[in-house]
């Protein structure tokens, strides 16, 4: 009886995770795409040296986000990691986090009046769960130096 309950609970969690996780991911991607279009005028460079010789003000700008996996992804990745290879479900997770972090960095830059961000660095930090069943999350930080043009 207890086994049956466990199986039912597991199926419920997996279904909820799949449906809600998919919905949330698609919504997040739509949100990301619309903001990426909107913030396209804030330019981001990985170059260490700025091209503008006379920007008088520099500000450190950063954006970060913590994104958690859902129950379904955790289950699938558990199975997939037996065989190795690509873990597509996690690729989208990290991709979302990274794009979101860049967007937040751009938003901060725009709020401070910077239109160009140089020397952008990424940092990914995985936050482990308490045990095997409570899943982990990933934090992505993007930071760089925004140049504010003299008025």
């Amino acid at each position, binding site marked *: 009886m207890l086994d049956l309950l466990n199986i039912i609970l597991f199926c419920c969690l997996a279904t909820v995770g799949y449906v*809600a996780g998919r919905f*949330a991911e698609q919504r997040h991607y739509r949100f990301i795409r619309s903001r990426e279009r909107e913030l396209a005028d804030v330019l981001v460079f990985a170059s260490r040296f700025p091209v503008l010789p006379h920007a008088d003000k520099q500000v450190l700008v950063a954006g970060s986000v*913590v994104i958690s996996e859902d129950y379904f992804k955790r289950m699938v990745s558990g199975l997939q990691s037996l065989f190795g290879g690509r873990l597509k479900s996690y690729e989208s997770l990290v991709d979302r986090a990274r794009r979101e972090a860049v967007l937040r960095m751009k938003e901060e830059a725009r709020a401070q009046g910077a239109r160009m961000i140089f020397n952008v660095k990424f940092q990914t930090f995985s936050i482990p769960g308490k045990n095997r069943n409570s899943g982990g999350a990933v934090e992505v930080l993007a930071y760089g130096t925004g140049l504010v043009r003299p008025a």
Partner: protein
Amino acid sequence: MMVSNLEIVPGRRVVKHLGLVQGSTVRAKNVGKDLLASLKNIVGGELKSYTELLHEARKEATERMMEQAQAIGANAILNVRFSTSSITQGAAELLAYGTAVVLE
């Protein structure tokens, strides 16, 4: 105090180099946040409480770094980097470090 992760400042010259300054903080998540996060773990998505926690911690680390730089008489910190490491289960250390300099 100017904080930047570039190595140079356009139009200004570094007159004195004061060495490395750093600031760090260790933060743990609290039980309430942890509980909410574990519920959120079923459906996935952003864990806003964690985002905020790490953001606050990073700000604190940056402020400590700036205090240290001010104490040795710098007016700018260049080439700033961030680093995060997990110390034990549920706690993270956030470190900010950079080069303290005096700009003309």
